[in-house]
């Protein structure tokens, strides 16, 4: 196996890693908002239900959740919900989206609850509806407040994608182990490290840029 062949293999794995990362974000960022509304819902049964779900998801390993999502539907209903290569990817995506929504929801909740009551009261006396208050007054302040914890979580997600290998999703580690490491070629491991460093480096720059963009006002 020559250098360019290894490169192509690793890139295909890295492509999977990236699509898992971006798709998880696309679904989990808004879903986290929905979960957050459950967490702060004045209707107690819904609030407790959401809290229990978040407790379970945050309290069990993501790896276990990957297994559960991939195997349990088939065991219970004797149908293969996730079939073939794309099925494995879908199962991983579902597990990641559920897992990260719960973490995001808690970060959002912290942000929303840190907004001073005066902001809500000012919006109320100005005749804004609750929806307007959330989207026009609260949300942008929340975004500014949660940027730092969100950058943490998003960076963790980059590296968590490697867990998808446990259900044989062909992300970069799986490819490396099955196709390259098995031929006793060690150096690509370091090569993969560089991939991740560059990716996280780019994300860090992006978050710094966003923080700068939002620094025109203080809370």
């Amino acid at each position, binding site marked *: 196996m020559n250098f360019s062949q290894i490169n192509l293999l690793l890139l295909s794995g890295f492509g999977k890693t990236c699509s898992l990362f971006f798709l998880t974000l696309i679904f989990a960022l808004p879903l986290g908002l929905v979960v957050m509304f459950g967490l702060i819902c004045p209707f107690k049964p819904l609030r407790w239900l959401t809290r229990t779900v978040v407790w379970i998801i945050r309290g069990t390993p993501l790896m276990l959740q990957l297994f559960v999502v991939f195997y349990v539907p088939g065991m219970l209903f004797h149908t293969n919900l996730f079939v073939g290569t794309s099925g494995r990817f879908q199962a991983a995506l579902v597990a990641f989206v559920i897992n990260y929504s719960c973490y995001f929801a808690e970060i959002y909740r912290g942000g929303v609850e840190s907004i001073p009551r005066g902001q809500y009261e000012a919006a109320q006396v*100005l005749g804004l509806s609750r929806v307007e208050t959330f989207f026009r007054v609260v949300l942008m302040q929340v975004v500014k407040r949660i940027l730092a914890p969100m950058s943490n979580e998003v960076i963790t997600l980059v590296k968590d994608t490697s867990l998808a290998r446990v259900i044989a999703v062909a992300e970069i580690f799986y490819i490396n182990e099955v196709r390259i490491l098995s031929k006793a070629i060690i150096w690509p491991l370091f090569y993969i490290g560089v991939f991740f460093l560059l990716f996280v480096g780019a994300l860090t720059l992006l978050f710094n840029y966003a923080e700068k963009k939002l620094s025109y006002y203080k809370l």
Partner: protein
Amino acid sequence: MAILEVKNLRKHFGGNEVLKGVDFSLEKGNVLSIIGSSGGGKTTLLRCLNFLEKADEGDIFVNGECVYHAEAGMKKPVVSPKAQRSMGLVFQQFNLFPQYSVMDNLMLAPKLQAKRLPADARESAQEILARAEALLARVGLSEKANAYPCELSGGQCQRVAIARALMLQPEILCFDEPTSALDPELTGEVLRVIRSLKNSERTMIIVTHEMEFARNVSDKVIFMADGVIEEMGTPEEIFDHPKSEKTAAFLSHRAF
């Protein structure tokens, strides 16, 4: 006819009865100052008038129309949709929206309000802008239109907050200790603006610790203590000839 009539307003937090039946009325164009020691119920009264707290019992009439009604045993008070619009409030802590420029702070609520109206009845964006510019000039902050709240002094913030409340043209404009969060040297500019707003059309209620200001600007003064109106009258009556011992004691502790 009185523009505002408050009848038997009661409010308690847990076992603590903060308002023990408050009655008063206010004529259009009048300025009412509410004075009294901390914990006397002044701010709670003002918050009830702005529906930030829901009074447990009592009625609020604006222009003869009942906008708020609550009585013992009712699950929820009856609040008319007009209620919030008839009142405006300026907070002690300004509560400007930090992510919006001064101009956008002024225009946010009127723009959202316009959206709810049918196209032919709504105020255009240019009209809202023109009103906002006029009000900013009125509070002396035209050059700060594009500044953000964090770039302003406390006094400037409070003047913006006053302009923002005026944008909605409330029937009654309330001030909750508008200068208590300000350094003494910034108090004057805010009080000057409030004084300049006084005219025959504008009704204002001011909760304040500035006795000199209350005496000069008000048509009517209420002294509150322990959740009731201890004394009510013209500034001369309250400040020069207080009838109640509590009022006299309160005023004697204050240097003029």
